[in-house]
């Protein structure tokens, strides 16, 4: 761990100019991430930021850190390898709803049950933007897109309910409608010792429907604090999460009051416990001597 020194949000902004459409919600998300990182104060070189593929997955490039813009759906396996290889790093993963809940949908359950200390931010816009407007796993049933001309026939995935059911220790939702709230939630997620999930309703200005733009989101947004929700109450969190799609609850749905040990910490413990049994590497073949 490094000595804490003062960092400001701008210290995490890279020189790359985002390719996002003007007005894209992801501009706010990256600002929220800069602010959260500044509040935490880890120097950029101690941060690894991994993404998959999609508009939102460009985000590590716009952040000063060790970035990894990998392949579609696989930010979590890579982030996990980084964290296990070097648990001292602050590891973030990010991507879109298609990346996280469709092509890469199989990974999140396992990251959650392992409780690897990673913060996973999904920029959920209910559409495939980079490939120009196809149905995504969070698109509402009946949604008309270029791959659903007559309306989608499928129920959407409910990301919040999924991760709560999988047993995530920290689950929150944010939106560009409240940038300060978003930064605070991301900061809290990073500080949580274990796997933390933040769903961000980030509007697609090009392919999103009217109701999914900032004005529409504001109309359905409700702060969990103002509802008096107790984030230690997992069942209440699941109850609220059922309204995903109709309501946009902002804030922390669930924070495990007694966080379980993280996988990376357990790995360290095991290394420490077993290191005394190590044969010198140059003698490793002695394991094969039959006496």
């Amino acid at each position: 761990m490094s000595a804490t020194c003062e960092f400001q949000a701008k210290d995490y902004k890279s020189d790359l100019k985002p390719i996002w459409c003007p007005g894209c919600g992801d501009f706010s998300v990256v600002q929220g991430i800069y602010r959260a990182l500044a509040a935490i104060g880890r120097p950029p070189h101690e941060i690894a930021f991994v993404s998959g593929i999609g508009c939102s997955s460009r985000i590590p490039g716009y952040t000063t850190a060790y970035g990894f813009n990998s392949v579609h759906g696989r930010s979590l396996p890579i982030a996990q390898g980084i964290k296990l290889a070097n648990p001292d790093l602050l590891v973030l993963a990010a991507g879109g709803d298609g990346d996280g809940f469709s092509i890469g949908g199989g990974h999140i359950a396992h990251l959650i049950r392992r409780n690897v200390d990673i913060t996973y931010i999904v920029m959920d816009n209910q559409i495939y933007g980079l490939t120009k407007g196809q149905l995504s796993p969070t698109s509402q049933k009946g949604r008309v897109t270029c791959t659903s001309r007559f309306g989608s026939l499928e129920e959407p995935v409910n990301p919040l309910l999924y991760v709560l059911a999988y047993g995530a220790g920290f689950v929150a939702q944010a939106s560009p409608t409240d940038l300060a709230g978003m930064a605070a939630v991301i900061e809290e997620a990073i500080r949580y010792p274990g796997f933390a999930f933040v769903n961000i309703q980030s509007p697609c200005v090009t392919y999103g429907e009217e109701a999914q733009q900032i004005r529409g989101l504001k109309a359905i947004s409700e702060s969990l604090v103002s509802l008096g929700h107790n984030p230690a109450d997992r069942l209440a969190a699941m109850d609220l999460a059922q309204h995903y799609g109709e309501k946009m609850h902002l804030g922390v749905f669930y924070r495990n009051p007694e966080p379980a040990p993280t996988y990376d910490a357990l790995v360290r413990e095991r290394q420490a416990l077993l290191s005394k049994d190590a044969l010198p590497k140059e003698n490793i073949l002695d394991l094969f001597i039959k006496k």
Partner: protein
Amino acid sequence: MRKDLVFGMAGSGGDGIVSAGDSLLQAAAAEGYHGVMTKSFGSQIRGGESSCRVRIATEPILNPGGNLDVAVALNWEDFLKFGAELPVSGNTVVIYEAATGIKETEIPLVGVTPLQVIAVPIAAMAKETAGTERAKNTVVLGLIAGWFGIGAVAVMKGIRKKLAKKGEELVNANQRAFDAGRAFAMEHPLKTSMAVMPSETKGQVKLITDGNDMCAAAAIFAGCQFFGGYPITPSTEIMQFFTDHVWKYGGAVLQAEDEIAGIGAAVGASFAGKKSMTATSGPGLSLKSEMMGLASIAELPLVIVDVQRGGPSTGLPTKTEQSDLFAACFSAHGDVIRPVLAPTSVADTFRITIEAFNIAEYYQTPVIILSDQEIASRKETLDPIDTSQFKIINRQEPHGADLVDYKRFKQTDNHISPISHPGMLGGTYLASGIEHVESGAPTNSGSVHQRMNDKRTKKFDPLKDRKDLFEVLGNPDAPIAMIAWGSIAGVCREALAMAQAEGLNVKLLVPYLLYPVAEGVYNEFFTSVQKGLIIEQTHLAQTFKLLRMHIDLPKGVKSLARSGANPFLPGEIVAALHHLLSELQRSHEGQLQPQE
């Protein structure tokens, strides 16, 4: 007396065939012999047919051997399921369970009259001496000790140790079963004695291990600190070895949720600065291929082991084949060179695995180790290896001036750019699957893409000059040649020795580096060649085609290829070489000089 003996045993799953093979191999090692043991199963987990082959010799062994000298059938139905894997010839002594009720003159082996056929009441002897038929395998070991002189003391010493915790009575029961087998053999001597000469190296330390364990141990020796994988036959033991040992060296292992996550985590660990590895078999290699492309463009070191089995798809999951060659060389999308190495034995798996890490680290690239089921699963006795002779290479990291305005993918004279990792001050960059400029920033530029493809392919040029990754055996000027890799190289090494003993002027090229194809090495090898065989266990002659893609093969060089689970025998390869010789003599009468 014999210098070399090949045993083949088969029975059903609960008969303890493999455990008997293990005991025999360990006893042979304790008595100073060289030994190789291969196992073959049906794909059932319990029950079903099970077999092993143990070859024991006074000289180092190159392969599991061809025709059996001794065949042991605990029942015929299971024995016959192994077909060409347990070939019986006119020189084989066949021992079988008398309770099968089949007469010695009526055993169900078509078209062959074995040297001698002996029905032994194995089950009855086990029941009588040990009180249970489960001691059948110990009776068999007693028969082997009596007839062939192997393990008279060492077998029981081993069994005693193995069963020590289970109580004196069990040990004694096994001793009685073993003695009964040995006494039966003494009372019924073979028509022709087949006892093996005592070894001159008795008492020297020997290692016993298989290719998978050797590969994992070599990886840890090379500094590998992360393994991500998913269970798949026949590679899983590599992950198992890591779960037993890597923690001790400050490393970690992840049994991931799928093949993609396994390699993904390994890619992540490499990005984080650690040497990392994954292992799989054919179907898993297909799943991992997108990540391999990512590691190539992001220039991340990574070792991928593919223990080949019969394919495509589930294919023959417990049998060996070499048919993943194309997949190993070409399964990446885009223009990619990804080095492919192949060990030929358990012993050289150590060196090849270290080479794979060295190449991965030096060239910042994924490297595939193309092992196969036979090497991975067979056990060999080995003389101790002096590990101090192996050089370990680590990736080149940026220092000082490199870290001022650091460019991760900087053009350099050798096309290799110093690589930073998270935690290194001044080294932040964006790794990506998207094409990038020297800093790592994404680009769509055609000219940058051309330049970066140049960088990522030209960096491998020196690899093609690595003559030490090839072995030429026999007379370097011979007009007749063989090329073989992987486990098939071992068969060809023995065929070479046999052919030379018969006066053939022949040579053998064994490539350990399969890809990129080292054109220069092959062209030099082919200078003297008029006739030759490229010998491989693939249906499509993949090696032959891969070489023809890169090299103008001499006209007389042909393919000898067949599907997996149909082993090559050294004798048939020698016969094929004789055929080449007669062709050569017809076309070039009088030019051929017998080898001295």
